[in-house]
C-alpha cells in the first residue's frame, strides 16, 4: 500500500513503474491466494494488462506467445471462452479472448465461425443477450456481443435491429442507461449502451445533448469522475465516462486538466500501478483504465 501520496504532488505519468507493475502480474505465484481468487477472470486480466502496455508503448515487453497459449487453453467446445482453463464459457471472457488476439495481431488464428455462433446463440427474442447459458441479462452483454462480432467482421450473425431496440429500452429519465429496462442510470452501463449503439451506427436514436450533459456532471470538484450522482470518484470512470463522451463527440464538456491531475494522484509512486482513488491499493484493472483515460 502506498504511503505518503498526500505529501507528494504526482504530476507526471510514472510510465516505467506501471510497466513493471503490470509485467510482474504474470509471475505465477501459485501459493498466493490472490492468484486463485481472480482465476475466473484471468483472460480479462490479460486483456487489461496488454491494453495498458500497448497504451504505455510497451506491448513488446509482454510474453505474447505464452499469453496466446493460455487464452487458447480457455476455449470451450461451444466456441466461447472461459476465464481460465476448464472454466465454463461466458461472453465476458469470449470478448477478452478476441481482444487479446486482436492486440497481439493474431485475429486470423481464431475460429470466427464458432465464436460467432456462440455469441448469436445467446441473443434473446427481445434483442437482449444472456451472459451465458444461465440467463443473466445485462446491457454490458449487448455491448460485449456486438464488440466481439465487430472485431471478427461478423455483425451479420445477430439481429442488430432487435439488439438496438433492447438497448433503447434501457434509456432513463436522465438520458443515461441502466443494466436492464427500468434500472437506474450508471456510467458503466451507459458506456456499454453508447458503445453498442455506436457499433450499430444508431447514436442518432438518443438525446445526445442530454446524455452528454449527464456524463459531464460526473466530474467532481477533485477532477475525478463518478459513476452516478452522489457517488465517489473512481479512476475506472475515466474510461467509461470519457469514452462515452468521446463517442458522443462531447469530450470538451469536462475539465480535461483536472481529470488528468486526478488520475496522476491515483498512482502508486513506490510499487507502480494506479488505484481507484488517491491512496488506495493499485490493481491491473484500474491501471488500464487510468492509463487509457
Amino acid at each position, binding site marked *: 500500500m502506498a504511503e505518503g501520496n498526500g505529501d507528494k504532488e504526482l504530476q507526471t505519468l510514472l510510465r516505467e513503474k506501471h510497466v513493471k507493475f503490470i509485467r510482474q502480474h504474470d509471475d505465477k505465484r501459485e501459493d498466493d491466494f490472490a492468484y486463485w481468487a481472480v482465476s475466473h477472470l484471468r483472460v480479462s486480466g490479460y486483456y487489461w494488462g496488454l491494453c495498458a502496455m500497448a497504451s504505455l508503448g510497451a506491448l513488446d515487453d509482454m510474453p505474447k506467445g505464452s499469453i496466446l497459449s493460455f487464452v487458447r487453453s480457455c476455449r470451450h467446445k461451444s466456441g466461447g471462452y472461459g476465464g481460465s482453463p476448464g472454466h465454463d464459457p461466458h461472453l465476458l471472457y469470449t470478448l477478452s479472448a478476441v481482444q487479446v488476439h486482436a492486440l497481439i495481431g493474431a485475429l486470423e488464428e481464431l475460429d470466427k465461425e464458432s465464436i460467432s455462433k456462440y455469441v448469436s446463440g445467446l441473443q434473446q427474442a427481445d434483442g437482449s443477450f444472456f451472459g451465458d447459458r444461465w440467463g443473466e441479462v445485462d446491457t454490458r452483454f449487448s455491448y460485449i456481443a456486438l464488440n466481439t462480432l465487430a472485431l471478427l467482421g461478423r455483425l451479420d450473425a445477430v439481429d442488430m435491429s432487435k439488439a438496438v431496440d433492447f438497448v433503447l429500452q434501457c434509456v432513463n*429519465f436522465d438520458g443515461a442507461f441502466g443494466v436492464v429496462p*427500468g434500472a437506474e442510470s450508471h456510467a458503466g452501463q451507459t458506456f456499454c449502451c453508447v458503445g453498442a449503439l455506436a457499433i450499430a451506427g444508431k447514436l442518432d436514436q438518443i438525446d445526445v445533448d442530454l446524455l452528454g450533459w449527464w456524463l*459531464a456532471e460526473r466530474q467532481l470538484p477533485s477532477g475525478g469522475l463518478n459513476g452516478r450522482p452522489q*457517488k465517489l470518484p473512481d479512476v475506472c470512470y475515466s474510461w467509461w465516462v470519457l469514452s462515452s463522451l468521446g463517442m458522443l463527440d462531447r469530450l470538451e*464538456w*469536462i475539465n480535461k486538466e483536472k481529470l488528468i491531475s486526478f488520475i496522476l494522484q491515483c498512482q502508486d509512486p513506490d510499487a507502480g500501478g494506479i488505484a481507484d482513488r488517491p491512496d488506495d491499493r493499485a490493481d491491473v484493472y484500474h491501471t488500464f483504465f487510468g492509463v487509457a483515460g
Partner: protein
Amino acid sequence: EELLLWFHRQWTTLRLQEWHTCDWGYELELCTAFLKADCRNFHCWNYRRHVTEQARTSAKDEFAFTTKKILELFSNYSAWHQRSALLPQTCTSEEELAKALQREIDFVKNAFYTDAVDQSPWLYYRWLLSQLKDDVDMKQELATCEELLSEDMELTPFESKWPTLTEVSIRKRLGETSHESELLRASLTRLAEVDPDRKNYYEYLMGK
C-alpha cells in the same frame, strides 16, 4: 454489492416459484431491510423490481415506497429514478397524468427549497418539466426559478447553479435564443462562472 450474488438469488427464486412457491413477501421485506442499510444499492433496487413484478405489487404501493425513501433522504437518486419509472404507471389517463405531474412538481420543490445544491431533485424536476405540455405551466415554473434566484433568497453563487441551469432549460423550451434573449445570455455567462469545469457545455448552449 456483488452482482452475481443478486443474479443467483433471482434465478433461485424463479426456480422455487416453478417447483413449489416463493415467498415474495419475505423477499420484498428483505429488499426493504437492505435498502435501509444502503439506500443507493442499485443491485437491490433491481432485485426489488424483480420481486414486485413477480408478486404483482401495485405501482401505487411501490410509488409510496419511493416517497418514504425520498422523505428519509432527498438526495436518494435511486428513489427519484424509480419514481420516474412508476409515475406513468400510476395513471390511467392523460388528465390523471397531468394532475400527477403538478403534484410531483409541488413535491420536488420541497426538496430543492430545502437544499438548492442537491442535484437529485433538480434532475427529477427537469424531467417533470420535459413532460409538461402547456407553455403556461412552463412559465409558472420559470417564475419558481426566478424567485429562488432573487436576492431575497440569498443563494450563494455555488447554490445558484441548479436553479440557473433549470431556468436556462425552461427558457429554451419556451423558444428563447441567446441571440435574442439577454436574460438567457446572462444566465449562461453566470453558469460558466460558478461551474467553470463545464464551461464548454454552457458555451455550446449559448451557440444553440
